[in-house]
Structure formats: C-alpha cells, structure tokens
C-alpha cells in the first residue's frame, strides 16, 4: 500500500498535477500515455506494484481508475493504457503531449511480485486486460533471471485490437518468453492463433506445482481461464485475478466497487483466486 497519501497530502482526494510526456496510438480506441508527476518529491515517493491503479483526474469531467501499465522498475514516468470508453477517457484521448492531468494513487493491492519470484509464470490476458498485466510482464522482464519459465497468452477480438503488438512481435522470437497471441476474428494478415484464449491451453506445457497464474480480462473470461488452469493442476491460491468495478474514490469509501464482502479498490483489484472463490458475484 502506498505511503503517499499520508506523507505527501493531507487530502487523499486531491490529485497531483502530472504532465503528459508522450502519447502513442495503439488502436483506434486505445492510446498509451506516458506521464510524469510534476512535483519532484511526490514523483520520487510514487512507488507502486504491478496491478495497482491510479485515479486519473480531468477537472470539469471527472475521474477514472486506470491501471498502471509500466513496470515499477521504470522510474520517474508512469504509463497508462487507456481505452476511450466514456467521458473521462474520451477527454483524455483529446489531450496532447505537454498537457497537464491529475493523478492520485497508487491505489489497491497489486500482484505479489516477491512471492512470485523464483517461480514459473503463466499470464493470461484478454483485450484491455493486458494493461495491468503488461506492467507485470515488463517487471518480470526486468528481473528475468529471478523467474523460471514465463508463458503469456493474450487474446483479442481481432488483430487491430491487439495492444502493444510492436513489443510482442519482438518478443515472439525470444526463447525466454513463450508468447501466444490469438484473435476471434482474424484478417488476411493474421499469422497467429485463432479462437478464444482458453484454446491455447492445449498448446502449452507448464509445471503446475511451480507456476503462478495471473489473469486479467473481461469479466466473462475469468471462469473459463481458471477452469483451464485448474485442469492443468494449478493450485487455486497460486492464481491471481484482477477485477474491474465502478469506482468513485479508489480508497475504500464510496462503496461502488463492492465485490462480495470486499472492495475492489483496497482489497483488490488483484485478488488471490482462492479468496475470490469466496466472493459472491465475483466470477
């Protein structure tokens, strides 16, 4: 959990100004924003774990919770991969390099990186779910020697919705990552797999006793992916899932993000699957 809110601001609702330092168009609807918190001491104190999120604030429009896409090892800048889904995200998409936005955070519980170290990893992303997972993937990449086998399964509806393709295309040729991409609706250029991510489980070989799983994607995807992981013999308490819920504060007060008896903002968004099994309406 972040020490920021206490040390650096008496008001955890008050966003910090941050400057957009670069914008990259990923798809028609998604852009990758790199941002830098303007205040030096706040920026330095802004330490986060993969899977945590920030509240992005555009005054006059509102706030939206967004996962941090960059790895904690990247210092001084954070990256947000944002889909234009409504008011705040739409207004962010209209911003330009150099514009100032507001950020609060980091909030929530991320992936247990320390605990995962020394193990194999199976990361499964669907659609925009790659945003928080990318932070974890990059973090693993930066600490590659601490991990065993790393397998990444990533599915999207169609090729144009595959995010970070430039990076994955590079990685496909590396032998320290097993990366499989799939789409539901391929086009002529598509040379990878076709079908749901769950189909890819037949193609991979993992050591279930030594593998940690991480899943992030649209709500419908979880049950099926977890089933496959369980079929492979993975333990429920080694699987981590990240949930998206409506949020208005990010700090366990507004009540919107209730999942079962927990709050996605402070008890999650990353939950251990064994815990999540006991959360009503979670999966």
């Amino acid at each position, binding site marked *: 959990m972040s020490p920021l809110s206490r040390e650096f601001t008496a008001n955890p609702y008050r966003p910090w100004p941050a400057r957009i330092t670069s914008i990259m168009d990923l798809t028609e609807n998604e852009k990758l924003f790199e941002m830098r918190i303007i205040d030096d001491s706040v920026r330095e104190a802004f330490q986060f774990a993969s899977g945590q999120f920030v509240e992005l604030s555009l005054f*006059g*429009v509102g706030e939206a919770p967004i996962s941090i896409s960059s790895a904690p090892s990247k210092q001084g800048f954070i990256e947000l991969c944002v889909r234009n889904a*409504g*008011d705040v995200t*739409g*207004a962010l998409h209209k911003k330009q390099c150099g514009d100032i936005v507001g950020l609060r955070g980091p909030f929530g519980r991320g992936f247990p990186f320390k605990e995962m170290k020394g193990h194999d990893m199976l990361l499964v992303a669907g659609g925009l779910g790659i945003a928080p997972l990318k932070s974890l993937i990059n973090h693993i990449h930066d600490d590659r020697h601490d991990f065993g086998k790393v397998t990444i399964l990533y599915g999207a509806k169609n090729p144009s919705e595959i995010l970070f393709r430039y990076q994955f295309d590079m990685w496909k040729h590396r032998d320290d990552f097993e990366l499989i991409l799939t789409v539901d609706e391929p086009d002529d250029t598509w040379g990878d797999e076709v079908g749901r991510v769950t189909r890819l489980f037949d193609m991979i070989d993992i050591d279930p006793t030594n593998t940690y799983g991480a899943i992030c994607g649209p709500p419908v995807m979880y049950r099926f992916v977890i089933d496959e992981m369980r079929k492979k013999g993975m333990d429920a308490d080694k699987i981590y899932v990240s949930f998206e819920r409506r949020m208005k504060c990010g700090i366990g007060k507004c009540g919107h993000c209730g999942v079962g008896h927990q709050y996605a903002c402070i008890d999650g968004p990353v939950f251990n699957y064994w815990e999540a099994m006991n959360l009503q309406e979670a999966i």
Partner: protein
Amino acid sequence: MPPRVVVVGLASDFGCQVQMTNIEDQLLDVLGRIELSYWQLASSGHMPEEYDVAIVEGAVTTGEHVALLERIRATASAVIAIGACAVTGGIPALATSGSLDDHYACVYGEGDVEVACGRIAPMPITSVIDVEYRVPGCPIDMDEFTQVLSRALQGLSDCIPREPMCAICKTLENICFYERGEVCLGLITRTGCNARCITLGRPCTGCRGLAEDANLESAILLLAERGVSREDLMTRARLYNTLEEAFTR
C-alpha cells in the same frame, strides 16, 4: 471558435425558454462561451444554415415541426431537448387522449372552421428525432439545464438521472406525503429537480416523467394497499405523461 448555438421553440408556453433567461446571474457568462446564432424569443434574424448545438423546446404538433426537426437533426451535432413537452410530450400531449377533432371542436366550435397551420397529434421531439441530451421537467430546472448545456459544450455524455425522487426527498428531510395520507408521484418520477414541489408542501405531479429505475408494479400494489386504485394512479401519472406507455396499460 465557440460552439454556435440555436434555440428553437415548437408548440409550448415558452416557459422553458423563459426559464433559460432566468439564469440572470450566469447568463452573461454562458454567452461568453458560445456564439448564440439564433433565438427567436430574444433576437431578430433568421435561423442560420449551420450551427453546432440546437436547444429545442416544445412539442411537435404540425408537419412543419417535423420537417424543422429533421433539418435540425441533419445540421446540429448535438440536440438538447428541453422541457416536458419536448421530452415526454408534457401538457400538450394531453390532447392525445380522445380525438383531436373533438378537442378542436370543443375549442373552436363545430361547423367547417378552417384548420389553421395544419395539425398532427402532439408528441415529444424525442419521438421524431434522436437527441443527445434531455432536460425534463415542466419547467426545466435551471441548475440542471446549465449543467447539461455545459456537458453538451464539453461533448460529454447525457447525465439524465434514472432514479425516482424519494432519495433526494429524504435528504431534504421532507415528511413523506404517504405518512400524511396523500398521494405523491415522487416514488416513480425521475429525480433531478431537488424534489422542488414536495419540499414546498405539494406532492410531486410527475412532470419529469417516469424514472427508468422505478418499480411501477410495486408502486401500484402498495398504493392499492393505501386505497388508491391503479386507475387513479395511472390517471394522475398521465397528467404530464399521456404518451408514457407504462401509464396507459
């Protein structure tokens, strides 16, 4: 370039346009953000060929209105329907209960009176064209209107509330009319007016229309328990909402 705005009135009492002029404190500020290209009530001149936002008041009661709306829809990038007339049909739509000819005869007498201006059964503009924003109410609430206009200028989504009135009524610490043995339509009416009438001692008459979240079936049952028949409730609810299907069943 500031957004070009036109204000158009169809069949109505102009009450919502008057209400728009009633934001004196803010009027000049708002005008600073827009280019007011046309407002028949306030200015000479003709409706321009091009504009960005159209604020439309009133119900549709003639073929000319339909044609005008279609033109507006083709031109404006955002249309704001203001007032019960435009959003639900409001009071003008009361004329849709019974035949239009009978209404006409009642007012203008039998015999072959020339029908001026042509006529069709009154309906809200939302039954003729799609609109981006709706500000319901008879008349519109000025605060809500300024917020919606502001959202339209910013290109944000419609923020029309979906819940019934009771929550805000509770926060205002009104004593519920049902505790006083009176019928209040707040429990099925779209919130957003700050429960204005109720707070001033008058039960809600439903001018903002049926709330999406409302549980009409339950309301009918529990009013029946209190001695208010389904038909009575429906008749009351139709005052501003004759065209609301849920109230005609």
